[in-house]
């Protein structure tokens, strides 16, 4: 009787350990997949934002107008939660950078109107 109980307890312990290890591994894989999915979503959204800003700049050549068209107040920083679009005017044109928090996700440069 005692021997049977011991065997049962040992088997239960092994089963619990196997289940716990499998659950922990699966959880880490799920978390990694979640991070990748979020990164993909950020990249997709930020590249579209930057692309749109650059296309706007190509069309009008004025950074303030781009800011207003993209939903800002005419300034360089445009808050599009959870992203921030930063427009920088330089000698040759404009550089648009999209951030999530402090991390830059995507950036591209645009040249203004030819002439």
């Amino acid at each position: 009787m005692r021997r049977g109980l011991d065997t049962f307890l040992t088997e239960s312990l092994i089963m619990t350990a196997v289940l716990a290890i499998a659950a922990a591994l699966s959880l880490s894989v799920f978390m990694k997949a979640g991070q990748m999915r979020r990164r993909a979503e950020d990249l997709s959204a930020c590249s579209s934002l930057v692309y749109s800003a650059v296309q706007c700049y190509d069309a009008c050549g004025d950074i303030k107008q781009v800011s207003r068209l993209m939903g800002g107040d005419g300034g360089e920083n445009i808050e599009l939660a959870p992203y921030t679009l930063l427009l920088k005017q330089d000698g040759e044109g404009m550089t648009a950078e999209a951030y999530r928090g402090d991390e830059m996700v995507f950036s591209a440069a645009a040249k203004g109107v030819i002439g």
Partner: protein
Amino acid sequence: MKRNILPPGIISLAVVFVCLCLTVLSLLCYTSAKSELSLAEASAANKKKVLEGSFMCRGLADTAMALYNEGYSPEQAAESAGGSWNGEEMVFEWGIDENRVMVLTLDPQSGKSAEYLRYVGTWTPDTGLEVWDGQ
């Protein structure tokens, strides 16, 4: 009194089944997320290349316009800037990848320009699938 006892081994089978389900689901989730990320990266890289191509063409066109405004002929201005003259417009090209070229055409008199992507790769039709073509 009759006791309800589970058949021997059913718990082990259930644990094995649960582990298998967890493994398969997590792997499916991982592969789907990975493909989603590679698609987003490829799309972002493509957007960047197109914008860079456009940027480079505009740079060439800008140089050509500056030369044209200095008194160069349209042909000379376009060729000096790395483009060509087709008789009506200056044409500037910039390779984006092995299959695509960004083209910018510019009319120096009106200053009107147009940009488009030209595909230069060779298209090989897939003849492996038998499709009824009406004959």
